[in-house]
């Protein structure tokens, strides 16, 4: 992931916190730390997959990069320019180069506007060409996404979910961006349509030389479409690696658990299931030390106290004390195997593991840090 040439996107210690206000005077009583210090880079033409479960902050991260949500700390450098420092006018022109496709094909297209109006908006705002030129660009963008020119006169609700998502992609493309944030672009679609849209995205990437940030919870699609993958948990990145590396040799216990939880048709792909106890804690009160420790079957004393620093081997970066120790003792493959077997042993009696729930961690109203780890 680290190249001699400058990356297209470089995110550094990005934080996005939302204040929690209580009372008549709306005093700030705490912060929801949706994104709590993430760093990664994406080279031009490559795709970074960002995976995690709901509440981990991946959607907020995508939007923070585009400043659709204002980050509260850190740096986002796009093509060498600091996005956070840009003033509104400059930001607007920067927006042309960084676009986003949303998850919900029903909500992201204004139901009262024709497809033409929706696609034309960006062109009008950025004053790209006269009427004829705009029409040409819009038709070209629609063609690219497999929709006929007649689409322009229709309203979004006349189309199916898959078609709407194509329209949304066309809208993002009409400004000829370099970078696309894809925020769960296929989750809301039917299974047989998902493959169509994924193929479309891959084709567009090749034809137009696009760079993607692909945010999703669907691990198999992410593996297919991404060059590199970052795993997010409770506002932090726990592991980042090239896609093949991550899937073949995951190091972080959470990554192991995540992969093992996906049900699969092919029996040989099914991993020994590691059932994590409890639920994701609230991002308003993340646990001390390693954020994952209340649910981690391998948690040790150090994990409860010290936030694990990054351990990097090759292009593979992980934040875990146990993994660091294993890596020091052997190579990545061996470490990954050992962690897998430790996890299976720890969560051996799966019936028991599910019983012991970190009670404090599951209720948003309970005080932090009182979660119990599994024995």
């Amino acid at each position: 992931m680290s190249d001699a040439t400058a990356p297209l996107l470089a995110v550094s210690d990005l934080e996005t916190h939302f204040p929690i206000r209580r009372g008549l005077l709306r005093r700030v009583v705490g912060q929801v730390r949706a994104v709590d210090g993430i760093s990664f880079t994406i080279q031009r033409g490559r795709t970074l997959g960002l995976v995690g479960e709901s509440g981990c902050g991946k959607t907020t991260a995508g939007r923070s990069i585009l400043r659709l949500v204002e980050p509260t700390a850190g740096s986002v450098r796009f093509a060498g320019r600091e996005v956070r420092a840009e003033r509104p006018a400059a930001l607007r022109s920067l927006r042309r180069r960084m676009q986003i496709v949303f998850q919900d094909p029903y909500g992201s297209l204004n139901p009262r506007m024709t497809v033409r109006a929706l696609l034309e908006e960006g062109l009008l705002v950025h004053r790209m060409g006269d009427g004829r030129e705009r029409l040409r660009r819009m038709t070209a963008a629609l063609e690219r996404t497999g929709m006929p020119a007649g689409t322009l006169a229709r309203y979004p609700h006349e189309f199916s979910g898959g078609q709407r998502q194509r329209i949304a992609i066309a809208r993002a493309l009409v400004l000829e961006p370099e970078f696309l944030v894809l925020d769960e672009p296929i989750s809301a679609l039917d299974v047989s349509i998902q493959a169509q849209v994924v193929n479309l995205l891959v084709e567009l990437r090749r034809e137009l030389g696009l760079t993607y940030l692909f945010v999703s919870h669907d691990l198999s699609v992410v593996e297919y479409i991404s060059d590199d993958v970052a795993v997010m948990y409770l506002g932090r990145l726990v592991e980042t690696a090239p896609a093949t590396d991550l899937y073949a040799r995951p190091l972080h216990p959470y990554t192991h658990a995540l992969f093992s939880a996906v049900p699969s048709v092919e029996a040989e792909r099914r991993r020994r299931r590691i059932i994590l106890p409890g639920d994701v804690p609230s991002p308003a009160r993340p646990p001390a030390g390693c954020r994952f420790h209340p649910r981690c079957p391998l948690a040790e004393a150090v994990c409860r106290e010290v936030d694990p620093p990054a351990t990097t081997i090759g292009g593979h970066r992980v934040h875990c004390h146990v993994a660091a120790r294993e890596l020091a003792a052997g190579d990545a493959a061996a470490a990954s195997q050992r962690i897998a077997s430790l996890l299976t042993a720890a969560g051996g009696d799966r019936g028991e593991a599910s019983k012991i729930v970190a009670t404090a961690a599951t209720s948003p109203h309970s005080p932090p840090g009182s979660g119990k780890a599994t024995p």
Partner: protein
Amino acid sequence: MSEPARESIPPPRPRGFWAEAWNRYRRMPLAMAALIFIGFLAAVALFAPAIAGTKPVICKYKGRLYLPCLAYYNRGWEPVVFARDKFRGEYPANLEAKDPESWAIWPLVFQDPYRAVRRDEWPGLPANPARDQGHPSSRNLFGTTQTGVDVFAKMIHGTTVALLVGFVSMGIAATIGITVGALAGYFGGWLDVVFSRITEVVMCIPPLVLILALLAIVEKPTIWKMMAVLGLTGWTGISRLMRAEFLRLKSAEFVTAARSVGAGPGRIIIRHVLPNALAPVMVPITFGIAAAILTESGLSFLGFGQPPPSASWGSLLNDARSNLKMWWLVAFPGAAIFLTVLAFNLVGEGLQQATDPRLREARK
């Protein structure tokens, strides 16, 4: 080229939101009947001087064409020549006398909403009966008032007043309400705090009291001032609704999408949020028109409206107060008010059903 979605593009049909709503509305018989009735009222209001009046609709006098009936809309529009030639508002005899070559096209019913018709004003027509003698007859379809003014003419011209009151006052209220609500909802923060408090203050004052107070301050209560007052007091419900809609819609994903493309707040408010927020507000506006008409009638009935001779339906009811034996003074205006308010309410309900978002077709 990726898999085509071509073969499943539906054929073109007008599918805008309002087009679909109209389709649904059309299928509701009661709502359509109410809409047709209001259309009928609008026609009556527009052509009132041509339906009932003592001024010719169009006449040729001394070689030139005039439209004296327009004077009913605005006193200043009465052609000056007739005042110069001392017509004193009585056209039939004077036209004949002062210019034998004149001709005129008269309104359907020769009666005046503001005064009693005198004997032989129209050749062969007796004077309007006054006092209790004025029950409905073939000459005075709806009877006459105490002072001999024809009720039918008053009702016809009263339609203009009623509809004007409804639409103008609600127009003012809607403009204020939508603006305040939209700004408060979209921008939030201090603007919202200030606007919301203002809204609440206005809401807390009982409307009738406020209206009467404003009317008392105003020197001459004309119908226009009445409409302004109704408008200035009736905007709070709309503003709250708009604010709620804006609060909800400003975090809608298509708004975020518009921002991601570079649109600024002005564009977003007007092009994106407002069209989506207007539909729910149409319904209270329609109900508001009915309420405005009812309020104006009520005020006129109580004597707070235009001073006589006024052509409002409520003023007829005011007359009726002291003359209960003259049932025609109650029945006709009462029926008119009832039917009009009912019609607007039915239209409002029809609109509500037609614009119900749950009934929107959504394909998956």
